[in-house]
């Protein structure tokens, strides 16, 4: 082969390689493989969250003494490099593994759980206090009750729309048949009351293995109908308790409303710029071991550490007022209000925070207790009060207005040891001088 022919061949091969390589670079469809996984639906401190533990994950985590759901499944998994996670393609295969889930503590079998129906229900207006999980017959009964409630709601919604239509028709008729200003308002039809939002949430009945265990370390495995251990089903299970409960405040500065700062410790002080307006958003919170909690929600997490803790903020604290005591002895009670963030007209960025008005605004951007921090009254103490006016434990915080403009003085304070050194040096010099004088005299 001549040199020119060889060069041409090499060029064609390079171009072909680039072309095929380019095509391969566009497609991102990782290979799927059949695997046994544990799908979990676990109590996260407020509601239930779902996760998937592929075969590589050796340990599962869940909160103690709460009903959690373990669903061993066969599915197709694939590695997704963008998030560095194995994911399940449930649409290709989603098969519940039937048999018994066995739980061991050391070598002792402590529980053998059969496959059961379960249903999770809660009121989204107050999930923490309304969350229920039904198992077996209870699950079916709960779902039936939910269906009945939903049907009744649909019925009342239908009735409302009908009444609304009738009201509008009657109103139109009055407008057509009467001159403006001639109808006595008392003769006008009464507008029907709108039906509130349906806040009850429920899952459909599903089949899985419910587990509620005391704190401890366990081993779980699946045994199929023939009593044979299902491959890849043996995993460690860490059941952990929440370490502490409390009340957190998300402190939303008016001029940075998307960047709140959380105050999770009851003894933490909130320092603020003079003249700032802040909005306090109280919520329930729980303290957990960082690794246990994070891996419960994301079994493939690698970043969390067992020697650290993590505060988890839950739902907004319902039905409360905020008592604000100033350093001057003033005491005020603030109500939780909605606020609307209005973008300013023009091409530049800018916004103003307005009190929410349901008549003119669609929905509030956020809710909170507003506090205008005056530079003249630099210490505030805030505390949440419940519906009966009683202080809520752990909700007290101190807010102090920081003297930000005194930053340069902090550096001047560093001269303190040099000043002391100078005094010592001068005293020493005088001492030596007096000794010299005495010796000379």
């Amino acid at each position, binding site marked *: 082969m001549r040199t020119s022919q060889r060069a041409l061949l090499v060029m064609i091969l390079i171009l072909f390689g680039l072309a095929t390589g380019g095509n391969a670079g566009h497609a991102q469809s990782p290979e799927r493989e059949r695997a046994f996984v544990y799908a979990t639906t676990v109590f996260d401190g407020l509601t239930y969250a779902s996760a998937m533990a592929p075969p*590589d994950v050796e340990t599962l985590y869940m909160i103690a003494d709460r009903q959690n759901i373990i669903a061993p499944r066969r599915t197709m998994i694939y590695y997704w490099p963008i*998030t*560095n996670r194995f994911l399940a393609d449930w649409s290709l295969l989603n098969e519940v593994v039937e048999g018994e889930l066995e739980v061991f503590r050391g070598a002792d079998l402590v529980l053998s759980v059969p496959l059961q129906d379960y249903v999770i229900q809660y009121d989204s207006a107050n999930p923490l206090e309304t969350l229920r999980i039904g198992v077996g017959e209870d699950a079916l009964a709960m779902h039936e009750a939910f269906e009945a409630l939903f049907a009744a709601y649909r019925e009342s919604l239908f009735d409302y729309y009908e009444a609304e239509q009738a009201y509008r028709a009657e109103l139109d008729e009055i407008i057509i048949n009467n001159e403006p200003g001639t109808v006595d308002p008392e003769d006008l039809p009464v507008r029907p009351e709108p039906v509130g939002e349906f806040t009850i949430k429920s899952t459909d009945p599903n089949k899985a293995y419910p587990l509620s265990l005391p704190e401890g370390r366990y081993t779980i495995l699946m045994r199929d109908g023939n009593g044979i251990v299902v491959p890849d089903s043996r995993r460690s299970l860490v059941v952990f308790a929440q370490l502490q409960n409390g009340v957190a405040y998300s*402190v939303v*500065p*008016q*001029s*940075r409303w998307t*960047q709140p*700062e*959380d*105050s999770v*410790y009851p*003894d*933490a*002080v*909130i*320092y*603020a*710029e003079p003249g*700032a307006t*802040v909005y306090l958003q109280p919520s329930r919170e729980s303290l957990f071991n960082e690794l246990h909690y994070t891996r419960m929600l994301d079994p*493939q997490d*690698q*970043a969390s*550490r067992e*020697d650290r803790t993590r505060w988890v903020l839950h739902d907004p604290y319902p039905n409360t007022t905020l008592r604000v005591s100033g350093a001057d002895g003033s005491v005020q009670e603030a109500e939780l209000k909605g606020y609307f963030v209005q973008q300013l007209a023009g091409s530049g960025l800018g916004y103003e925070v307005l009190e929410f008005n349901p008549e003119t605004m669609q929905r509030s951007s956020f809710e909170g207790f507003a506090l205008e921090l005056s530079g003249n009254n*630099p210490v505030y103490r805030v505390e949440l009060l419940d519906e009966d006016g009683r202080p809520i434990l752990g909700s007290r915080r*101190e807010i*102090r*207005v*920081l*003297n*930000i403009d*005194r*930053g340069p*003085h*902090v*550096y001047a*304070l*560093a*001269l*303190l*040891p*040099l000043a*002391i*050194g100078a005094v*010592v*040096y001068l005293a*020493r010099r005088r001492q030596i001088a007096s000794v010299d004088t005495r010796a000379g005299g």
Partner: protein
Amino acid sequence: MTKANPWLRHWRDRWHAANCIQRRASQSAFYGLGIYVAMFVALVIAAVSVGNTLNFTEQNIVFVSRQPIFLPVLINTIIISIYLAMVSTLNVSSERDQGTLETLIQGPVDGFAFLLGNFLGQLKVYAALALVAFVWSNLLTWLLHLQYSIGVAVVLVVSIAAAAVVIAFGMFIAMWGGRSRTALIYFTLITLLVVGIQLADQIVTGVVLASNPAVNDPLITVRNVLAAANGIVRWVSPYAQLDLAMTAYVDRAFLDFFAHTGIMLLQAAVFLLGSVWLLERKGVRD
């Protein structure tokens, strides 16, 4: 006239000798410029940390903290104690280098009294500087309108235990390392290693949190190795113990607080007695 118990007399003489050495060491430090400059540098660095907090508050409008002064106090303790430990390392090893230690030991001073005196001298200087730090922290609290906390005073008292460990460790290295320069190099390297592991652990953990790593990511291995190393270092390093004691104090975990303080006192005793043992073993000549 009754004769004193010989054992008691021996210890009284020892204490007297140690006290004389302590006075000499502390006076030498107080009349020098070094400690004032060292504390000035420490407070400037602490002021940078406070300045950062102020800048953060200015930009973020709010800043939430349980004890904003604890970090500057920790920085101050680290710098001052390292400086004093280096001074004590040099003092002790140069006495040996110059042969004055041999002369001292021929007289009424034994190895224990010599080391104890030097140790107490530097500790006295640290306690005085802790008092200055207390005044500084109160001025800072007043100036910036921070919340006054008795915890700062408590932590400054406990920081004396941390300083005791570092000073005793400096003397241990002086006895172990031999010549002044060698001892100083050993002390610097070990201190850098211990502080470096803690810093690296914090930095790598932060990087891991930000990078969403996979199971086989080499960063995870580095993080795990550093975390394991730090797991040991946190029980050895007096700064880690002081930090844990501070955390225990704000968490109101007083049992942990006293445990970490106790560990620091134990470490100081071990290093001090270890240096006495090394002096006896290696002798007073270089």
